[in-house]
């Protein structure tokens, strides 16, 4: 009981996740700045932003639904953090593990995006309304390739449970490298999920002010930002577990270090993509996802089915 509480609250639960989330934002912004030949923010910047936003005045628009408006940011945070609890950190078993938990994690990770949509919808502001419609359109375009890409490695391991997939690939050496296509697809789709350039269409501040979050002030906005950062960590951990299934039997200390390195690797890739691209239009985004990413993900699944037949013979 105490151990379960500790693992929820401290490691690898909320505290660990909170620090990781702020660190992720810092690394992302710092890399972004360095690639623009700037100095970039100091290391405490995300923390200072968080505290400042918490201490600011809270304004709720007159027309907004007060209860829903207030609860959505917390729901987003909770959902993003819950997803992390199901993902393995330093050994193949996550703290709460059950059969088919890869699918469950993907669905829990959809909840924050839905709260962004609802948050914009219930703000009753024109800009946030447009933003929330864009969130939803974007959700329908990246979710399918992401789902297929993340499930593809499981096809080869004939299971959608983290521990089975990880153990399967760990027993098979470099076999996980065949999933490289779906890894690329997943990275691009995740960029859309995290609403970062080139897929920051829902927040496009040059077009629609601040998109879904236009009306959110102070503490509520702080929670939304935190949810976004936690989501970055959760998604990176998910990709790390599925596409880089090695280093899960090294014990506690080494295991955590390897895990952090993997997350760092993914965050660096995401930051590089953010730097070198400019925002694309909504229709281009939908086309990219349905015309190129989905067939690629399908191809990976077929490849894995054939490979599986070859291996089992």
């Amino acid at each position, binding site marked *: 009981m105490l151990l379960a509480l500790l693992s929820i609250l401290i490691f690898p639960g909320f505290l660990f996740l909170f620090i990781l989330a702020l660190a992720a934002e810092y690394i992302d*912004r710092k890399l972004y*700045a360095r690639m*623009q*030949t*700037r*100095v*970039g*923010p*100091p290391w*405490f*910047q995300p*923390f*200072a*932003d*968080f*505290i*400042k936003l918490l*201490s*600011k*005045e*809270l*304004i709720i628009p007159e027309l907004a639904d007060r209860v829903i408006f207030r609860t959505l940011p917390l729901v987003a945070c909770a959902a993003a953090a819950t997803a992390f609890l199901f993902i393995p950190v330093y050994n193949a078993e996550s703290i709460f593990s059950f059969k088919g938990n890869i699918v469950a994690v993907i669905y829990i990770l959809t909840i924050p995006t839905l709260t962004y949509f609802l948050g914009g919808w219930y703000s009753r502001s024109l*800009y946030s309304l447009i933003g929330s419609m864009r969130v939803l359109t974007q959700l329908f375009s990246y979710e399918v390739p992401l789902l297929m890409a993340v499930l593809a490695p499981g096809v080869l391991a004939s299971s959608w449970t983290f521990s089975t997939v990880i153990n399967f690939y760990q027993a098979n050496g470099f076999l996980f490298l065949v999933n490289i296509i779906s890894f690329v697809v997943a990275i691009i789709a995740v960029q859309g999920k995290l609403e970062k350039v080139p897929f920051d269409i829902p927040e496009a*501040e*040059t077009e629609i*002010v*601040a998109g879904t*979050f*236009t*009306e*959110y*002030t*102070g503490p509520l*906005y702080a929670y939304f930002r935190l949810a976004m950062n936690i989501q970055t960590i959760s998604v990176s951990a998910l990709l790390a577990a599925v596409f880089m299934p090695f280093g899960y039997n090294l014990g506690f200390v080494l295991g955590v270090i390897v895990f952090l390195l993997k997350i760092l690797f993914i965050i660096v890739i995401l930051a590089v993509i953010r730097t070198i691209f400019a925002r694309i239009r909504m229709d281009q985004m939908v086309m990219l996802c349905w015309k190129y990413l989905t067939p690629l993900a399908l191809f990976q699944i077929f490849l894995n089915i054939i490979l599986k037949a070859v291996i089992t013979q």
Partner: protein
Amino acid sequence: MIKAVQKLITWSRLKSPWIIHFNTGACNACDIEIVAALTPTYDLERFGVQLKGTPRHADVLLCSGPVTRQIKDRLVRIYEQLPEPKFVVAVGTCACSGGVFEGCYNMLSGIDEAIPVNAYIPGCPASPDAIIDGITKLLKSFEESEAKKLTKAGG
């Protein structure tokens, strides 16, 4: 304990001033200088400054230009949309006192005729260095006033 929290909050406010930029009828030169101050050359993110699209997220309202009668209501509305604590900075001679537009029939003379202003940055146009200097001075004065408040509350 409460004092420590107060200190932490003041520190965080000093370290992350998010700005929003509003043209209240400037000739556009001051706006270009504000945008120039945000480019990688000056790298304001070093001080935690970020440009925000919506007044709801911002702490500092950067206004340029004497207030035209048309835009006065909107300026007041945007000012009211900023959550507390908020600061207003008047950028450019026009925003400070009317400048070359002084006495025009369709203009007020300066931002402070419409909303309270915390810092004035003169110059026609105000250079990016002057804008950065002005904002750091604003933050310093805020820090001092907060420190004074804390000592008053303590003793």
